[in-house]
Every structure is written in structure tokens, then in C-alpha cells.
């Protein structure tokens, strides 16, 4: 078997081996990650912030925006 041939087969074995090993590990890691994530109460602080807090923020922002708009309107008069 030529040297090139040998390298080719080596690459095939090594490559497919690594790809499968890596993706199998990734499958387990993903599954584990999902299990862990699902145990976190409320799933995700970012995804579902407590409504009150979020609302509070939003309200705050709306207030500020309203003031800014009012101020701007006054200026442009």
C-alpha cells in the first residue's frame, strides 16, 4: 500500500472516529444540559423574568420615555 493510500485510510478511520466520538459526547452533554436546565425553577431567569420585576422595569422605562417626550415637546414648541 502506497504511503498516500495509508494516510488516506488513517484519515478516514481517525476522522470518522473523532466525528462520531465528538457527536456522541455532544449528544450526552446536550441531553444532560437539558435535564439540568429543566430542573432550574422557572426554566430561565432571562427567558421568563418574574412578571412583576419585568413590568416594573418596563413601567419605569415608559415613565422615563413619557417624560422625555413631554420635555421634547415643550422644547420644540
Amino acid at each position, binding site marked *: 500500500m502506497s504511503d498516500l493510500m495509508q494516510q488516506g485510510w488513517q484519515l478516514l478511520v481517525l476522522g470518522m472516529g473523532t*466525528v462520531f466520538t*465528538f457527536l456522541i459526547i*455532544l449528544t450526552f452533554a446536550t441531553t444532560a444540559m437539558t435535564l439540568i436546565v429543566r430542573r432550574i425553577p422557572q426554566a*430561565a431567569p432571562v427567558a421568563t423574568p418574574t412578571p412583576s420585576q419585568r413590568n416594573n422595569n418596563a413601567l419605569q422605562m415608559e415613565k422615563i420615555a413619557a417624560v422625555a417626550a413631554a420635555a421634547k415637546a415643550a422644547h420644540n414648541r
Partner: protein
Amino acid sequence: MDKLLKLVNDSGLANIEFGQVVMMLLGLVLLYLAIARQFEPLLLLPIGFGALLVNIPGAGMAAAPVYNELGELVSYGGLLYYIFKMGIESGIFPLLIFMGVGAMTDFGPMLANPRTLLLGAAAQFGIFGTVIGAVLLNETGLVSYTIEQAAAIGIIGGADGPTSIYVASQLAPELLGAIAVAAYAYMALVPMLQPPIMKALTTKQERKIVMTQLRPVSKLEKIVFPLTLLILVALFLPSAAPLLGMFCLGNLMRESGVVERLSDTAQNALINIVTIFLGLGVGSKLDAASFLNLQTAGIMILGIVAFSAGTATGVLMAKLMNKLSSQQLNPLIGAAGVSAVPMAARVVNKVGLQANNQNFLLMHAMGPNVAGVIGSAVAAGVMLSYLG
């Protein structure tokens, strides 16, 4: 008078070589495929145009800069030279494209059914099988490839443009033009190449299998996944880190929801700018000397082998998994493991509908489809580690 003569002597007609004519015709063919047949136009249009530009005799669009003996710049290089050197040979453009693709990718369907990652693994046989194909072609004595070239050709089977360009630019830049053209052309041909193989390897009964509906995936899972992937890459295959790292960055920008303006730019202005340049730069490698040879002919043949092999092993893997598990997969979705996002998933959906017109496989095929992107980036990492 001698100045008029100079102008005439400088003209394209007086200098054009046969090879340049052929390559300009090839450029026009690529433009035809891009525009009239809508073969991956985002890349094939600038690639085809780059092929026209680089083959204009005397225009020097890809000329290197000239320095005198003191190392001072005498004349600047051409636009395509700088694009190629700075953006492609350095690997920067493919990596930025990968970031943008990451920002466009939804891992949801894959997270809902992580087993489909294995289909994305199996389909990478298209890559390594093609390396063997190239080596065998070398044995015939008709064409000569080094192992680096064989590897770069194999990556066509990854069915992923930026990965192909990245690997080819690192391992076999002299073949970059042919490899990129083959990769994009065959990706566009997926709707013709895949169905016969898919049908040959499955029974009508198998193609009718209805899969259970995918579970909903939470936002937090989608945020944590790119980080999980990156950490595994860091632990096990650092040579895949540039590609998968930028991919995960893009995906994290998308899913985190806190940097929408960055995610939006990565998916639009930035990826568009880079795509124009990437296409022109790849096209600038379509010069007669590097393209018109038997190596290119071999690449075109091996490219079909690559796509076909990947499709086949993806489908066969699904059938194997059905043997080993009670949760049945429709084996057609294995074909989506080659990547070619989202074309291959659409093909799966179409072939599935032919067998059962109520069976929509699109979302199920998106899992192996994006798994194929990860799979071929991993394969690229192995090659770069082994040969780089």
C-alpha cells in the same frame, strides 16, 4: 504613434490567451447558473464575476504588489489580490461568515431530539470516503493529489461553503477555486442528486414513517447549547475552535436576546459585505493555470461522490438507529445530515410528502441538517490537526 501602438498592444484582444477565454466562458456559465437557475446565487454570482475579472488580460485585478530591492512599495496590488490575501488566505472571511450563519441558525429542532446528531455524524462519511476516492484516483496515475489536497477535496462532502473554503485555503489554496465551485454547485444540485439515492436505500414503508412531534425547547436551553458545544470543542478538538467558536458566538448573540443589534448586523450588513468579498476572492482563483487541468476534472467527479456518499450513509445510519431503538425515525431525514442548509431539509420534506402527503418532515430534518454543520466543522478540525 508609438503611444497608440502601446494602447493597441495593451488591449485585451492583443494579449488574450486561450485559457483566459475558456475561464471567462466558465465565469459566464457560473453567472448563468446563479441568475437563470438560481444556483446558490449569493456566492456563485460574485465567484463567477470574479472569474471574469481575474481573466481580463493585463487588468492586473489580482496582481501582487511590487516592491523594489529596498523593500519599498513600487506599485499597489490589485483589489482581488488584497481581498484574497487579507480575507481568505488568513481565514478571516470564512470565519465571519460562520459567525453570521451561527446567528441565523436555530438549534431548536436538534435540541428537541439530540439523537439526530448521530445522523449528522454519519453523513460526514461523505468527507472521508471522498478522501479515499481521491487517493484511489491518484493510484490510477491519471491525476496526482497530495494528502492535503485529498483532504481539501473531501471537505466538499461537508456540503458547507465556508467550511470548504476555510479548509481549502489552509491545506490546498491552489485548488481553492475548483473546490469552492464544486461545493456550491453541488449544493445547488442537492434537489437532483439526493432523491434517487434516498429512494434507492429506503422502502416506501420506511419513507411513510410519521415521527412524533418535537417537544418545545426553552430559551435557556438554546442559550446554554452554544456554550456547551464550545466547551466540548475546547476540551476535545481545539483545532475546530476557530470555525465552531465563531459559529457559537453568532448563535449565542442570536439566542441570548440581549444584543439584538449585533445579531442583526452579523446576519445582514456584515455577512453581506463579507459574502461579496469572499465570492470575488474565490473567483480570483479561477485562473486558467490553476483550473484547467485534470485535478479539476477529478474534483468535479469526486464532488458528486462526496455528496452521494454522505447522503447514503446518513440514510443508512437512520435505518441502523431504527434497528437499535424503538423510537422510529423516518430514514429520509438522515439525508439532511450532509448539511446544505436548508436545501437538504427541504428535499427530505419533499420526498417525504411524495410517500405520504400528510407527513411534513421539514422540522425533523432541521435537526440532522444543523448537526451536519457541526459534524463537518469537526471533520475540518481533524484534518487541520492531522495535516496542518
